[in-house]
């Protein structure tokens, strides 16, 4: 990468740390450190919520998914706006009005200490591990693209984040998030413009080419429980997932608990409701345009440079053979794409021919991916390297550095929120609740900073191992989906006046058991439906038990 790009990345990292540390003012009390004295304006909270949800995977993996699979991933977010509106009139007023530090603290007031401790323990387990996975995803890509050792890449992302989160608390996290979100949106828009300028065909023709392969298909109305990306799984399963994520996950709840009032907290959530789908559509369109771009520019056989080099060295004959086949297929594909661009009324026929050539190209690429897996022993995940290849080889000097900085920003904003919420739950729900309830704010602050550093270390260690164990990231995600919906069910029960604490606890166990039964009994059912199953089971079991046996007990 050009030195100017490195200077931009370096300047960004220094700025983020300095800006975060600057926010130390007003964090000498526990409420200042964890909730910014409940003083944040709605727009800062809203941008912070969006930045937290937008991780490095969104910047690298999602456009890659757009390039290979098209727009259909957008359906995943269809339930989000409705969830935001419903949360705004249900959980947000309850949690903000209760003046709590954590969402789980509210559960003790409403139910009992066991429900609070159990849900917060589940949060620590899943978020501690997923925080590592969030660092691992970009670290693996950076180490392959730049040839760095993995621990170095993990440290580059993790250490600055831990420093500003530990020193500045939630104020640093939220205000740095605001700037990171601006940088991310700017980088995405700039890349879209550059792509449109660099394409050798008009934007309309580019869309015709993308459309010929079905990449502009955003809607699938089939009701298929095994398919994650359908309209129904997005709107129903996505609704429950987003309700759970934004309503009960401390990394999100803590943002709006830090806002000035309930209406401001609600407005901050609505910002996501308004902008999440358009923003996600932009990310996917970047991917679709990159697909069209690589029809007219020669892509490598494998986008992961480490795998490409390993295959070339260890299986040179097979590599050269596949490379020759690929070159020929690419030539034919380019001609077929140009035929679409100039086809006029014969676009159906031209599209048909393009699809046939595209299928041949994909066959060669699939063979190359299998070869890479055989040679390296790793799952290729080549889709994650499409965007870095484009950024480093085709973006103008300066903009490439800005995009890498935006990827780092997306990773850091998510990690910072996770670390801050992990420290909050550790101190408020465990240390202050069970170990030392009467200590001073100064003491709790010291413990909070130590907890942030501890979770930062855990995340970095998990990231280093998660990367080498590849599938661990999937295990973490699956583990999270075991109880995400169930925890939502407990919070929904909390709003039902006659629901009892012990019934909520039994319901939580029943919800998790139901999800486990579906996961192992019907593994093809998409994880989005697990959230629906978990939440509904907890609510039904909780209501039944409270109604049948709860009148004389608490």
């Amino acid at each position, binding site marked *: 990468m050009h030195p100017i790009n490195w200077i931009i990345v370096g300047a960004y990292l220094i700025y983020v740390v300095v800006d975060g540390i600057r926010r130390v003012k007003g964090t000498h009390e526990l409420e200042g450190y964890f909730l910014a004295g409940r003083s944040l304006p709605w727009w800062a909270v809203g941008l912070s919520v969006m930045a937290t949800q937008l991780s490095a995977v969104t910047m690298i993996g999602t456009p890659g998914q757009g390039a290979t699979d098209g*727009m259909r991933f957008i359906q995943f977010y269809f339930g989000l706006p409705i969830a935001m509106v419903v949360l705004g009139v249900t959980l947000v007023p309850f949690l903000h009005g209760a003046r709590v530090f954590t969402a789980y603290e509210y559960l003790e007031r409403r139910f009992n200490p066991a429900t609070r401790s159990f849900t917060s323990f589940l949060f620590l387990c899943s978020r501690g591990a997923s925080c590592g996975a969030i660092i691992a995803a970009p670290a693996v890509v950076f180490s392959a693209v730049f040839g760095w050792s993995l621990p170095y890449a993990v440290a580059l992302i993790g250490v600055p984040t831990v420093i500003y989160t530990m020193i500045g608390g939630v104020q640093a996290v939220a205000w740095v998030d605001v700037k990171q979100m601006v940088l991310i949106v700017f980088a995405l828009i700039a890349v879209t413009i550059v792509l449109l300028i660099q394409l050798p065909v008009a934007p309309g023709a580019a869309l015709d080419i993308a459309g010929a392969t079905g990449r502009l298909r955003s*809607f699938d109305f089939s009701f298929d429980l095994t398919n994650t990306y359908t309209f129904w799984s997005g709107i129903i399963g996505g609704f429950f997932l987003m309700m759970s994520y934004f309503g009960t996950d401390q990394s999100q709840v803590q943002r709006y608990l830090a806002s000035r009032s309930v209406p401001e907290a609600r407005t901050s959530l609505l910002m996501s409701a308004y902008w999440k789908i358009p923003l996600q559509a932009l990310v996917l369109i970047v991917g679709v345009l990159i697909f069209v771009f690589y029809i007219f520019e020669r892509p490598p056989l494998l986008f992961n440079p480490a795998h490409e080099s390993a295959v070339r060295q260890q299986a040179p004959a097979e590599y050269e053979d596949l490379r020759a086949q690929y070159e020929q297929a690419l030539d034919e594909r380019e001609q077929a794409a140009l035929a679409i661009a100039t086809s006029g009324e014969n676009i159906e026929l031209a599209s048909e021919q393009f699809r046939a050539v595209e299928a041949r190209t994909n066959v060669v690429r699939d063979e190359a991916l299998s070869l890479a897996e055989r040679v390296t022993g790793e799952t290729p995940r080549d889709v994650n390297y499409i965007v870095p290849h484009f950024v480093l080889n085709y973006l103008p000097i300066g903009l490439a550095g800005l995009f890498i900085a935006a990827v780092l920003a997306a990773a850091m904003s998510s990690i910072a929120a996770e670390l801050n919420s992990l420290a909050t739950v550790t101190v408020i729900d465990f240390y202050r609740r069970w170990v030392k309830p009467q200590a001073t704010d100064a003491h709790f602050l010291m413990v909070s900073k130590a907890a942030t550093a501890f979770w930062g270390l855990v995340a970095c260690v998990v990231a280093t191992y998660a990367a080498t164990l590849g599938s661990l990231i999937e295990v973490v995600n699956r583990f999270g989906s075991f109880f995400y919906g169930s925890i939502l069910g407990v919070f929904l029960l909390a709003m039902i006046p006659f629901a009892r604490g012990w019934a909520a606890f039994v319901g939580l166990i029943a919800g998790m058991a139901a999800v486990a039964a579906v996961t192992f009994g019907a593994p093809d059912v998409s994880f989005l439906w697990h959230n629906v199953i978990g939440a509904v089971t907890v609510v039904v079991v909780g209501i039944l038990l409270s109604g049948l046996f709860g009148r004389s007990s608490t």
Partner: protein
Amino acid sequence: MTPDSVTGPRDFRRTLVRVLAVQLATVLLLWLLQAAFTH
């Protein structure tokens, strides 16, 4: 505290209508993109 004590049903309906309007516009745009360019 009940939801109605911080936001009345009318506020909720207005918010719901606004959010749904923006989402419908986005979804319509995506639908048009799909319909116009999928051959």
